[in-house]
């Protein structure tokens, strides 16, 4: 009850041959030790294009698997094959956009769930959710209903799979393709393992809508999972966590880290109100910042009237800094070994 990657790529190839060929060659290539990327597309409205894709992949009987974990308002949820990098993930979605004939990114009809290996601890999941929200190219004002999945309320039916309503979610104990590289650390040196050190554990961000979201989630989950697993990028991960915490403290938002940003998957029903209060506080702060910047833009024709960059610019700078440092170190590592 599953379609193969090759079938999907064959269906997409007439619409974007160059990218499909690149995906065939490099789909499993891990870049700079960043984590692998799994994708789910939740279609929140008309699903004709997705149904056409299902038909092209062999029809419902062939391709619909026994999967229950979906956005509650999704008419169809497509689980895509995992890839080795954010770049491949974006290419895959761009190919599907070509097939559909319309955009998936920044389209309110679609929500992209980005799945990363490793169940991040509660504090790390909080950092991921906050960095994802503030670092996105779009600020969104969520309602709690926007975060409802089929695993939000059905504790009796699915038992341990109850996940509450969150931006960041643990896996539903489904499949995890482990056949990707993992940059580990042994005796302070890089050691590349050929399989992921996880059985099924994942941490997912439910509400991605852009390429930037995918890249930011990929960067943050790499840093946070390496910190948690004491893997190659653990030092960067530890510093990044501390920097995000300090950023929130500077903006008197440190308290929002004390609430459960992820459901612990214990099977117990979750109290979503604490989390949503914290998210509302963050959203209000971000939108106030937007209003301040918008007023400055109108009044001063782009000239900033204050010295403080603001939480949005600080998060952008933080993400830029850690992306640049990770890339520089990775390239330096490669050059060092080439000597």
């Amino acid at each position, binding site marked *: *009850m*599953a*379609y193969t*990657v090759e079938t999907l790529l064959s269906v997409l190839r007439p619409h974007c041959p160059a990218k499909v060929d690149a995906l065939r060659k490099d789909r499993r290539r891990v*870049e700079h030790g960043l984590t692998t990327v799994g994708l789910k597309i939740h279609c929140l409205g008309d699903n004709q294009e*997705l149904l056409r894709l299902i038909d092209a*992949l062999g029809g419902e009987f062939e*391709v*619909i*698997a026994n*999967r*229950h*974990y*979906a956005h509650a308002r999704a*008419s*169809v*949820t*497509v*689980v895509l*094959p995992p890839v080795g*990098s954010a*770049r491949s993930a974006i290419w895959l979605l761009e190919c599907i956009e070509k097939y559909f004939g319309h955009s998936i990114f920044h389209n309110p009809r679609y929500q992209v769930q980005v799945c990363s290996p490793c169940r991040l601890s509660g504090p790390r999941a909080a950092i991921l959710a906050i960095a994802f929200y503030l670092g*996105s*190219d*779009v*600020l*969104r*004002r969520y309602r709690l209903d926007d975060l409802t999945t089929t695993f939000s309320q059905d504790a009796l039916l699915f038992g341990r799979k109850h996940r509450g309503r969150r931006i960041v979610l643990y896996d539903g104990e489904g*499949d*995890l393709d482990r056949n990707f*590289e993992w940059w580990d650390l042994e005796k302070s040196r*890089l*050691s*590349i*393992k*050929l*399989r992921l050190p996880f059985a099924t554990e994942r941490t997912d961000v439910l509400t991605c809508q852009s390429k*930037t979201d995918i890249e930011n989630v990929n960067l943050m989950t790499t840093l946070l999972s390496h910190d948690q697993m004491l893997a190659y990028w653990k030092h960067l991960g530890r510093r990044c966590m501390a920097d995000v915490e300090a950023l929130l403290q500077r903006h008197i938002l440190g308290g929002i880290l004390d609430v459960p940003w992820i459901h612990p998957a214990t099977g117990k029903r979750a109290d979503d109100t604490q989390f949503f209060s914290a998210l509302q506080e963050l959203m209000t702060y971000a*939108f*106030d910042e*937007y*209003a301040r*910047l*918008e*007023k400055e*833009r*109108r009044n001063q024709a782009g000239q900033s009237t204050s010295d403080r960059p*603001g939480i*949005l*610019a600080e*998060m*952008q700078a933080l993400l*830029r800094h850690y992306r640049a440092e990770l*890339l520089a170190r*990775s*390239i330096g*590592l*490669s050059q060092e*070994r*080439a000597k």
Partner: protein
Amino acid sequence: MRAHQPGSTPIDIPETVPNPAYFPRPAPEPAPEREPTKAPEKVPEKTIVSRSDCTPVHGGISLR
């Protein structure tokens, strides 16, 4: 949503807005082709390898 301070002109803010601090960055550089030395994964003695461990994960589609 409307945001304003007393005495100032209110501005309307939609529920979704572009992040004003965001600037698109250039396309990422491809990673170098060279790979560092690889070390095989250490497999614990009592690891049970299930069929699903050996089967590549393919995509699936769910309808509801």
